[in-house]
């Protein structure tokens, strides 16, 4: 599970202008995030470095933009855990980033 998580976050399409690629990547990451159990989230978040936390926050907010049936609840848990590690700065970086996920 953890491996899928890391693989999904690696090589994220930050620099591309192709919207289709971005949406595919978002879909994959969202699938991984929603299939985590609540107890495992904290461990996954702790395994990320500073840039990884920022990237995770970007995906969480992207996931908030298009809510599906059960996604918001689990995304909120991811948000809470990532916030504990990254602080308000990580949210500011999501808002000010010019290269979106």
């Amino acid at each position, binding site marked *: 599970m953890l491996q899928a998580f890391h693989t999904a976050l690696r090589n994220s399409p930050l620099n591309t202008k192709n919207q289709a690629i971005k949406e595919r990547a978002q879909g994959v990451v969202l699938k991984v995030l929603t299939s985590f159990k609540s107890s495992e989230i904290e461990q996954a978040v702790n395994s990320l470095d500073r840039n990884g936390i920022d990237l995770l926050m970007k995906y969480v907010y992207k996931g908030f933009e298009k809510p599906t049936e059960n996604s918001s609840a689990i995304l909120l848990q991811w948000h809470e855990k990532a916030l504990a590690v990254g602080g308000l*700065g990580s949210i500011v970086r999501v808002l000010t980033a010019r290269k979106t996920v």
Partner: protein
Amino acid sequence: MAYHSFLLEPISCHAWNKDRTQLAICPNNHEVHIYKKAGEKWNKVHELKEHNGQVTGIDWAPESNRIVTCGTDRNAYVWTLKGNVWKPTLVILRINRAARCVKWSPKENKFAVGSGSRVISICYFEQENDWWVCKHIKKPIRSTVLSLDWHPNNVLLAAGACDFKCRIFSAYIKEVEERPSPTPWGSKMPFGELMFESSSSCGWVHSICFSESGNRVAWVGHDSTVCLWDANKKMAVASLSVETLPLLAVTFITENSLVAAGHDCYPMLFTYDESQGSLTFGGKLEVPKQSSQRGLTARERFQNLDKKASTETNNVMLETLHKNSISQISVIAGGKAKCTQFCTTGMDGGLSIWDIKSLESALKDLKIK
């Protein structure tokens, strides 16, 4: 840690005189008020009314005792004290947007103004015409210049702008000075030459500061980052993504330590490790206040859990000294190499003076290198 509340409005900018007995502030309007320290209290002694727009920058030259102010009315005035009155001299900046920041050069023979018209105006006094002349640095600035700082050699100028970049220009004016000697930033320095440009981070550069030796420059951006540039390390940038809200002001207090403050209302210490080329967070510089924590009753706990899904109380009052964002930091005593006191002003209309010695003793794991 002395805190003095001047007004209910934000203090837009402030400047100290040489012996730190007088303070010039702009109380968020068109005027500049000068306060004189009398014991523990501050008395208003002068009101400088000449600007037609909000005063956005004030700088007080310590040796020549002149004040330069710039405002949103696209003008700058140089004030000299004649007798007991401050007399203004208009400086035509030839800009068509508001001026945002102003700084005297270390030798006080010129000053730089950053403005919204994407230009830095370098102004110097021409003796024959008895008039302040200004020259522009335009390329390659793409947006408002928010902050400026001079290098100790009186020639190099660091500028932080809203196009997310920090740049170092040469502001060499041959009419007022001789050719500068080479520095780690470069050796050929004609006017307007871009010596260095940072790669894009993603935030407006709110504040920028040279270290005392001029070999390092640090800036803070709106994406909650602090970056430091060391000229001796072949332009490697050390940057730190901060965990708090964006910082608005930064200054060096020793060659290796920075104090920065911003929307989180308290100053923070950052340390630069030269051997590793990295910036680390040194700690919150906040005097812990004794707050009375009454225990929560069980009923309140359940209410909290029901309403906010958490069992802790959230304090509504900020526990910091400043009750609103800090917008400017200035070194009062000790210079940028061995600062012993610095002061912060903020949007809560208050000014507080921080003493490094008492901070070091109050916060035990604070290490200022």
